């Protein structure tokens, strides 16, 4: 019986400091990582694709990746594809909010009610995508896990900068 490691899905969020939609992307990602799918997800800071090492740039090669962007610049999706690998799925907060008929989120520092609703909406969508990706993997033919890059654990921490989910 071949040993198959359960892959974790990587979630890459835009940092989006300038817009409330960026805050929605960030908080929705954190909600999935911490509450909705903590055992099945990992993340990486987007800038590490440039500022980090080769191991960081291999993130999307080792994890099926879902990108979460605040606006149609799609920095996370395009940055991930440019420097790491093609994302398995992409979400844009603006698109989801418009499709659901929610009011535009406001308050990049403290979200208004519409922004909080958007966080739940986006987090729910990410969680469903995580399930779909893992389900697809489960039904695919088993493959040997890719070798870990030098100097990295086979069970990576939740953030590629090697921190856990909170401060040490």
């Amino acid at each position: 019986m071949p040993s198959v490691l359960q892959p974790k899905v990587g979630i890459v969020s835009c940092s989006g400091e300038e817009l409330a939609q960026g805050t929605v992307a960030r908080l929705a990602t954190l909600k999935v990582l911490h509450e909705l799918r903590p055992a099945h997800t990992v993340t990486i800071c987007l800038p590490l694709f440039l500022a980090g090492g080769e191991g960081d740039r291999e993130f999307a090669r080792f994890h099926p990746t879902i990108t979460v962007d605040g606006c149609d610049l799609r920095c996370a999706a395009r940055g991930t594809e440019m420097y790491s690998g093609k994302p398995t799925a992409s979400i844009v907060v603006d698109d989801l909010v418009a499709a659901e008929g929610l009011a535009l989120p406001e308050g990049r520092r403290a979200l208004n009610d519409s922004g909080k609703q958007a966080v739940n909406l986006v987090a729910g969508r990410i969680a469903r995508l995580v399930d779909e990706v893992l389900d697809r993997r489960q039904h695919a033919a088993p493959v040997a896990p890719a070798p870990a890059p030098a100097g990295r654990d086979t069970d990576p921490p939740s953030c590629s900068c090697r921190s856990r989910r909170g401060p040490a």
Partner: protein
Amino acid sequence: MTANATQVVVIPCSGIGKTYGSVAREAAYDLCEDLRPEGTTLVALAKLVLGEEKARERVRSCPAVTIDGCKLMCASKLVTHSGGQVAHEVAVLDVYRRHKELKPEGIAELNEGGLKLARLLAEEVAGVVDEIRRTATTAGGRHA
């Protein structure tokens, strides 16, 4: 020329994985929204990752202050990578080491210690921003 001529761009790390990143982000908001709204402009780090031309032009033409959450110093590195000059860089951890009574906790929502640490960091950086603007004005430099 007035002291308002120089805009300082502020770039916090995106720090989604740990508390110090959230402190960096909060401090940037403290600085740009509350303390020095007239003299600072917040630039999203993700835009520099993507190489978005407007963001690159901003960091090339204005002095940049970076606020990083961890030793990898992504914000600082990305400004340099984009052709800009870091006028001042701050690491949250260094500020925390000087103020151990303000232990930050939480990522999505900072605890009181984290919020106070962010405010303190922002106040320190506000002084630096004033100095950068004063120097630029004295030197006759005018930035976009």
